[in-house]
């Protein structure tokens, strides 16, 4: 089964030439795929379209065998696909790390105790237990990145979309992140400008060129 299947996606911001002009993409379970392309070529837009945060002008999105077009169609998709945002400050909005990680599971209908158990498990898995009670806005850049990943993993997604995950990370934290990601079972769609990171995590790559995705 294909996790994600995008066909012929077209999208333009009002008053601008199209950024996506017939982009197609398939992601299979466990597959690791990189997206490359210059700044402003529409990589982040594509991720937002997959998550249903932006509607394409035309084209189809099929996820887990179901076609998705309306807002309600994307509710289930968002439970099964996790997007890690480029700027951790956009994603970590809760006062404390524990509350932020619990936010997703609570939305999935878990009870408070179940959510807290998930928080403990995810933090333990990523070896981040020491951050549990910390205030989110006081975390370092590297810590913020790892906590955003934990917050997404807490929802047990089947696929991960990563938007420039190594932005503003030092080499040590980058290595740590790579180690964690490589050990995950999930399919990964990676947007990154760092060639070494792409080569290590997801060597198979598509380039976004003139609004289309072409194999590299």
């Amino acid at each position, binding site marked *: 089964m294909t996790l994600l299947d995008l066909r012929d996606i077209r999208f333009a911001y009002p008053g601008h030439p199209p950024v996506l002009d017939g982009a197609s993409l398939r992601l299979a379970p466990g597959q690791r795929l990189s997206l490359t392309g210059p700044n402003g070529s529409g990589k982040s837009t594509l991720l937002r379209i997959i998550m249903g945060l932006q509607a394409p002008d035309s084209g189809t999105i099929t996820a887990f065998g179901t076609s998705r077009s309306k807002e309600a169609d994307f509710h289930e998709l968002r439970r099964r696909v996790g997007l890690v945002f480029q700027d951790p400050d*956009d994603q970590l909005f809760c*006062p*404390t790390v524990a509350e932020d990680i619990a*936010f997703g599971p609570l*939305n999935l209908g878990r009870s408070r105790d179940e959510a*807290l158990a998930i928080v403990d498990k995810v933090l333990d898995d990523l070896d981040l237990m020491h951050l549990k009670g910390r205030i989110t806005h006081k975390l370092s850049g590297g810590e913020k990145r790892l906590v955003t990943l934990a917050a997404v993993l807490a929802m047990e997604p089947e696929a991960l979309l990563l938007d420039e995950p190594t932005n503003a990370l030092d080499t040590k934290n980058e290595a740590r992140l790579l180690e964690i990601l490589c050990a995950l079972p999930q399919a990964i769609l990676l947007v990154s400008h760092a060639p070494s990171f792409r080569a290590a995590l997801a060597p198979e790559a598509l380039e976004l060129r003139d609004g289309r995705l072409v194999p590299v």
Partner: protein
Amino acid sequence: MAHALGHREATLSEAGDSDRAGIIGALDPRLRIVMACLFGTVTVALTSLPALCAALATALLLLAASRLPPVPTLKRMAMMDGFILFMLVLLPFSVPGPPIVTIWGLTASWAGLWQAVEIALTANAVILALMVLVGTLEPVTLGHALHRLRCPETLVHLLMFTIRYIEVLREEYLRLRGAMKVRGFRPGSNWHTYRSFGYLVGMMLVRAIERSERILGAMKCRGFSGRLLLMQDFALTRRDRVVGAAMTALCLGLLLLDTL
């Protein structure tokens, strides 16, 4: 508020450092908020000079018990005095009563002087107690405690979002200011300055709105269903009860002293 903050100081992140909060830091945050409100209300109700002096002394004692650095804290308090100074100076001249002195045909009265002193004592005692009791809390803990004190949930969430993003936006502001500075911008009283500052403010607001759109997107991606939960709990210890009772007794004592 700008005046209370040096350029290098962080906005809220240095405010609450629980390690150094001493006796007061160990108290239940809810109790600290309630006590600050009780003390504030009682102090505003006081009218006699001895009672007001006692109230200020109480606030100073709280400061001593808090292990807050006394000098910067008192400086912040004094900063507020700077702002009300002109009002206090005017009062002796505008309240009728037995004269003290006449300057340029204006007569200062004892009654007006007392009123000015009263206001100064009240304002300083209340704000100092507030800073010591509540200002030593981690801002996030303040939000949690207000939630447990049954503040409307929407208001608490609004407070939490504000606290969360002040530092992020301030860094954004400092980056924009830095970018202006390195291109030779030096503020003065001129059209160019006001236009540049206006653009700066406009840019900050546009970026803030765009950021809030991304935040909402991130919330939706994690299945946001219109519910936000706050999880921190507090428990009153025996010590909290004792301190609470002592503070209440002290406030009653102030009221009693006032009637003497």
